[in-house]
């Protein structure tokens, strides 16, 4: 399921995985959960933002033009 979730399968494998999920509610429920979890992790992680001061400091690292 993992590579399918990550879209790292080739076409034939994708079709096989999808066919299985179509017919198997056990896997389908767990697949949907994995998708929700993945989305949630990304959202929770995105809450960690750069402080504006850091952005300024990075900007100050630019090579000065003469």
């Amino acid at each position, binding site marked *: 399921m993992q590579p399918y979730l990550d879209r790292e399968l080739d076409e034939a494998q994708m079709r096989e995985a999808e066919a299985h999920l179509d017919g198997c509610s056990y896997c389908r429920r767990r697949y949907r959960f994995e998708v929700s979890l993945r989305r949630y992790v990304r959202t929770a*992680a995105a809450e960690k933002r750069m402080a504006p001061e850091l952005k300024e400091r990075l900007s100050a690292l630019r090579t000065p033009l003469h």
Partner: protein
Amino acid sequence: MSEPTQTEARRIAEEARDRVRFEEEALELSDQVFRVARHLVGSREEAEDLMQETYARAFRSWRSFTPGTNLRAWLLRILTNLNIDRGRRQQRAPQTTSIDERGDYYLYDKLEAAEGKPLDEERVIEKLSQGSIVDALAQVPHDFRDVLVLVDIGEFSYADAAQILDIPIGTVMSRLHRARRILKGELAEEVVK
């Protein structure tokens, strides 16, 4: 020293333009780079230090970046190398873990058992919000965590993650798989009482 020729002057101007453009593109990516950096290390302070070191080095070695290739991956490669240099153990020797690893569906099964019925997305989010992703992530051994952060938070492909960390794709997959299992196990401890 003689004055630069017209050709030379044009070359210098073009190079300056390329460099300025490179630096601006790199800065535009800083939010995304930070999002990954923040979860690779333990604290905000460490992440900020790492970001400054990374961008200083990136700007110094801008000529070694091939235009048109993945700049975000290039920056993250510098960042992860700097992180290793800061005294962490070698990427190639993952720390042995005595963590009790659960199966892939452990979290799902526990949540569903606690609910007494199939889960819907809203309920899943509600339950997960009761825990802390950051705390759970911190429990994952760093070699596994690096891969999970790059793929699940940084949204890099297996191939990009492999390049960034300088490990084989097979290793990316196995570490990712274990990282996810450990993370889910930690979340289960937090949200299912």
